[in-house]
């Protein structure tokens, strides 16, 4: 089990870091490609390339990153909640509230995983393909059931650890610094 979790952690981190890097490079390349049209000597070669699919790919990469990254976020404790009440009540009640909060997370993501799986099956039946890349849509929609199941698993992990040790993953301040907005 421990080995399984470690492998899962690595795959998760590796996937989302690659997705964000790939999306950035794709859009950067598409911009460079389009601008190269102003230089005839360059465009001679660049014109042969086609980047019309870049935006679509970028969107899909980021949606995949968002679904798996949200699961990673449960592990790092980055999903912020309203803690006014939680911090105001007695420890015994706090324990109850945190348990409820984490169970809600696990429940919601489980429901979404099931609904997403239903939707993937439906899309599979229609044989829909994406407009630019012409990839089968059901494969692209797979991120919803897969990501949400993983997220559900993460919520359960955090819940079990909380019930056993009373600790929650705390988002470190240095990383919080990169919180936008």
């Amino acid at each position, binding site marked *: 089990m421990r080995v399984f979790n470690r492998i899962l952690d690595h795959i998760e981190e590796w996937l989302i870091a690659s997705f964000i890097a790939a999306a950035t490079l794709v859009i950067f390349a598409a911009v460079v490609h389009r601008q190269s049209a102003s230089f005839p000597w360059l465009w001679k070669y660049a014109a042969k390339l086609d980047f019309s699919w870049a935006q679509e790919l970028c969107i899909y990469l980021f949606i995949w990153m968002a679904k798996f990254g949200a699961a990673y976020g449960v592990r790092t404790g980055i999903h912020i909640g309203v803690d006014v009440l939680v911090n105001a009540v007695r420890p015994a009640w706090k324990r109850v509230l945190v348990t409820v909060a984490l169970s809600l997370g696990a429940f919601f993501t489980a429901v979404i995983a099931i609904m997403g799986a239903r*939707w993937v099956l439906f899309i599979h039946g229609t044989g829909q393909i994406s407009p630019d890349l012409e990839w089968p849509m059901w494969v692209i929609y797979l991120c919803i059931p897969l990501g949400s199941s993983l997220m559900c698993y993460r919520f359960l992990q955090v819940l079990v650890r909380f019930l056993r040790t009373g600790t929650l993953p705390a988002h470190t301040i240095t990383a919080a*610094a990169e919180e936008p*907005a």
Partner: protein
Amino acid sequence: MNVTLILVILLVFLLTGTPISIALGMTVLTFLALFSSFSIDTVDIVSQRLFTGLESFAIMAVPFFVLSGSFLTDGGIARRIIRFALALVGSMRGGLAIAAILACTFFATISGSSPATVVAIGSIMLPAMVRHGYPKRFAVGVITTSGSLGILIPPSIVMIIYAVSTSESAGKLFIAGIVPGLLLAAVLMLVTYVTAARKNIPTAPRASLKEVWLSFKDAFWGLMLVVIVMGGIYGGIFTPTEAAAVSAVYAFIAAVFIYRGLKLKDVPKVLLSAANTSAMLLYIITNAILFSFLLTSEQIPQALSQWVVAQHLSPWMFLVAVNVALLAAGQFMEPSSIILILAPLLVPIAKSLGIDPIHLGVIMTVNMEIGMIHPPVGLNLFVASHIAKMGLTEVSIACLPWVFVLLVYLVLVTYVPAISLWLPGLLY
């Protein structure tokens, strides 16, 4: 009434302390399951929205700007910007503090996030100010507050989220933020100058012209990012999202190869932390889109808008109400969630009262700035308390006078629309 019901359900979920995104999604599920004609079609619409809600190229500016911000924070760019700001204004009374505000202003023009601005500038300027005999509280207040310029001066992640959730143009909103942002920077500097004169804070010797030039040359590659992003968007070279992607690549090159503040082997860590933050934001966005789908399908924005119009509220009174509501919401939620939930509700009303949605966007952004330096959930406070090694309460007290300054400024921005609308009116 349905709107009360929905809000009560949301509040109950929120109070358990569950993530805001989960609370939003659970509200939608609960309402659909218990109080509406629940059918398999609704389930399908919800499943579809989970994906199609994010299927927009405009939203993707958010992760790109987050990534670019991560490279800028870690890349040694802030240090150069501070040196340049010090050379320019360091010799004035309260010069270090004024230079800190100027550096935050410069940094805000290349970064779209305010906590990132506090970290980048504060971790260098705060110890410097304390070392030179500035009262610690004063120094912390200056940094935490001027860091909030990050979201008002373009580019701004908060503004992108507003633009996406109300179908306004992010480019126009960026332009609208320039004058209010610079004006606020000027106001903060003025307040600092007056306070410094009263407290008799030491001054530094004037920098030579040579130092000004050298520090400018050193900071040049960092500051070039403003030209690329803003010039690129308004020169029609690329869309805001593409500008964000280019700025991420540029920030990477500047951090790793020009300034060498970041080692190549640390890049995966930066990628992962940027992915973590942006996935969190995108997840809130997905669920907020679900939530506003519920509101729209229950016709709540229209009902609310009709109700407000029937009250014969003047735009003036409406804006008072908006500000009070936003400040209240800022007490317990962070900016992106507030904007995602409230902006789609407020914009139709504002429009029917003749208020420009771009103006409303600027008002909301200034409101969010106040929320960030105000307990209990001010993100800037958390960051500042970590850098300053001061308790959250003490940092909050240090920021209180500044909250007051920002409130006065909010009134100004609210009732003088020209501050926000003059520049976009000129360009669009």
